[in-house]
């Protein structure tokens, strides 16, 4: 049985308010899955809308469910979008955890499971698909809205096969 690993590949702490952080040159060997953890804040609110491989084509699909502090539940979906939605950060400290499966596969589309924890407002779970058979070599974490505040910590872990 292979030895399981959960290795920190790279992390970055946002120094000043920014709308984008890109992690390029992700490992091309040694890992099967990636876990991205975003722990931080937005000035007011910022939707996290990543892209892989600088791909802004209509290659991202998702289905999501939500529970919120108003006591409502919601489920929505979208297909063929030009980016992903991984939830949102607010001015309270938030936490987003994304699991990217088989990110180096060149014979299938990539699947993701994402949890977004914006405790002031809502908790969300997403299932996403990146319709590409290219290995994922870069991730751009885009914060639309007010962007990612200084101090936001983004970490990418690798899980070996």
């Amino acid at each position, binding site marked *: 049985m292979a030895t399981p690993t*959960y290795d*920190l590949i790279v992390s970055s702490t946002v120094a000043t308010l920014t709308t984008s952080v890109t992690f390029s040159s992700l490992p091309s060997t040694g890992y099967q899955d990636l876990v991205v953890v975003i722990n931080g804040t937005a000035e007011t609110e910022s939707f996290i809308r990543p892209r892989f491989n600088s791909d802004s084509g209509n290659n991202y699909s998702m289905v999501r469910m939500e*529970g919120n502090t108003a*006591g409502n*539940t919601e489920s929505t979906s979208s297909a063929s979008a030009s980016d992903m939605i991984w939830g949102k950060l607010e001015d*309270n400290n*938030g*936490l987003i*955890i994304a699991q990217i499966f088989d990110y180096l596969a060149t014979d299938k589309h990539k699947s993701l499971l994402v949890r977004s*924890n914006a405790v002031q407002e809502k908790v969300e779970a997403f299932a996403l698909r990146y319709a590409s058979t290219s290995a994922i070599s870069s991730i751009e974490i885009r914060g639309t809205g007010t962007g990612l505040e200084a101090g936001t910590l983004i970490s990418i872990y690798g899980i070996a096969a």
Partner: protein
Amino acid sequence: MTMTLVETITVGSGGAASIEFTGIAGDARDLVLLLSLRNSVDSPSATLSFNTGGTYSRVRLLGNGSAASSDSASVDLQSNTSVSTANTFSNSSLCVSNYASSAAKSYSVDSVNENNATLANQAIIAGSWTGTAAITSLEVTPTSGNFVEHSTASLYIIS
């Protein structure tokens, strides 16, 4: 740089009023707690507490086998109870990111209870603790009753 088991606590005969990890070192980045719980009474929930003091906020999405709901929960975890199918335990995972930071702590919980019946809760919870000290202790407490024998909790650090 890896995920390392810090400690597994298994409740012994006679049960336990809580499960507590102390002396958590602050030299890692994230905490992961995996739980298998069953309560001695018909009370399906448990709460987390870090260190001492501070306040907690939560939002929860809950499914119970027939309907979905959401609320600002006062509990963090599902627990099997005295009326759950015999020998079954709940399953939960907790992730606390950047637990040694000087900011408020955000955490994420996935939790289900097991029951051979239509009614079985599953929940995802976003939580926040206002404490700004590094987390050095973590306690899991049932809402009422005790955790029964064979309940377990395993704490991991990711560095």
